[in-house]
Every structure is written in C-alpha cells, then in structure tokens.
C-alpha cells in the first residue's frame, strides 16, 4: 500500500478560495515533499518540509507537518484557475526503501 495517502481524492473550489489537502503516512520520515502534476505528465516539486519542522511557507503555499500524527497538510491560498492540477505528497523515510514514496494524489479543480 502507499506510504502516503492524500485526502480528499478530489476537490473543486472557486477561484479566490483556499484549498486544503491532507496527507497521512505510516513510517518515520526524514522529510515530506509536495509535488504538482499537470495533465498526467512530469511532476514539479513545490515544497519540502523536514521532520524537525512544523510549518513552512512558499508564496501562496503553506505546509504543516505533525510527526506525532504522521500527517501533513498543504494549503493553497487565494487559488487561481492555473492551480488546477493533481497534488501528491511524497515521503523520504529513514528506514526501508530509500526512494521517495508517493501517495495517490488529490485532484484539484479551480473554477474561474
């Protein structure tokens, strides 16, 4: 099964609203990363949060990490139609597989 599971699977909002996506994982991590994917092709890195960090900001993005609950959230503020994409969390674990492990993604639709 996937290390990371995103919630919700799909999200539809109006332009200007905020979008929140959640990710849960199972094992201890070194860091957690969020990626964006347009049109089912290459993924683009958005933000990386280390295991000793609790919150991180990048532009309109805000990521939180709660290692006690093994969960993270990605908040996109003041969404735009161009934010329409799939968003994935990926975990870099201390043990086991060294490759990034991805969740199943949240498909975000921002209506203009």
């Amino acid at each position, binding site marked *: 099964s996937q290390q990371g599971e995103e919630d919700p699977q799909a999200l539809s909002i109006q332009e200007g609203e905020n979008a929140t996506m959640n990710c849960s994982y199972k094992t201890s991590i070194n860091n957690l990363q969020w990626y964006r994917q347009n049109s089912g092709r290459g993924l683009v890195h958005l933000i*990386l949060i280390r295991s000793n960090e609790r919150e991180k900001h990048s532009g309109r993005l805000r990521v939180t990490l709660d290692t006690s609950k093994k969960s993270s959230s990605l908040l996109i503020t003041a969404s735009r139609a161009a934010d329409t994409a799939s968003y994935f969390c990926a975990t870099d674990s201390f043990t086991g*597989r060294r490759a990034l492990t991805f969740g199943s993604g949240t498909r975000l639709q921002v209506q203009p």
Partner: protein
Amino acid sequence: GAGVSQSPSNKVTEKGKDVELRCDPISGHTALYWYRQSLGQGLEFLIYFQGNSAPDKSGLPSDRFSAERTGGSVSTLTIQRTQQEDSAVYLCASSLEARMNTEAFFGQGTRLTVV
C-alpha cells in the same frame, strides 16, 4: 541538459514485443528513480539507483521488467513480452543523494500503450 530527459515521449507497441525506455538524468545527480503511473492513479515505485550501490529493485512488478544504469548516468528500463496491463506512463526522476533533504526532478514521462 537542463532537466531530466525521457525518450520516447510516446510508445505504442504490440502485445508480446519488448520495449526500452530511456532516461537521461540531470548531470551530477547520483540518485535515479523509475515510477509507473496508470491513468488517474498515484505513482508506483519500480526501481531506484544510488551511485554505485546495488539498485533497489523491490518495486519491479515481474521478471519481465529490468533496468540498468550505465556509468552512473543514463538509465534504460526494459519491459519484455509486454502485456496490456503494462500500459501506463513511465516516469523517471533524479536527485542528489537521497536522504539529503533534496527534491526530485522529473522527466515528462513515456506514455506506453500496449495494443
């Protein structure tokens, strides 16, 4: 090159044929990953290379799948005797050494269709 390059972009093959997918990572990146993504699904890990270490092949779905990385750079993913369930987008990514808090850079993928 400036980014991760994958070729071909699209590949249509007949069931039972062998295919080779190529990935050219970013120069200097020691870690290279292959993932597979079926339509509307998440990324399924296939194989991971890190420098001169033995690759992690734990994600390869069957012995029809193999991959190599020559000279620590270009990687080839080979699928023998392709089946229709192999149809997917195959994504390659590279990064500086794993567990060093660095991001992965993805290619645009190869869309494989087995007919």
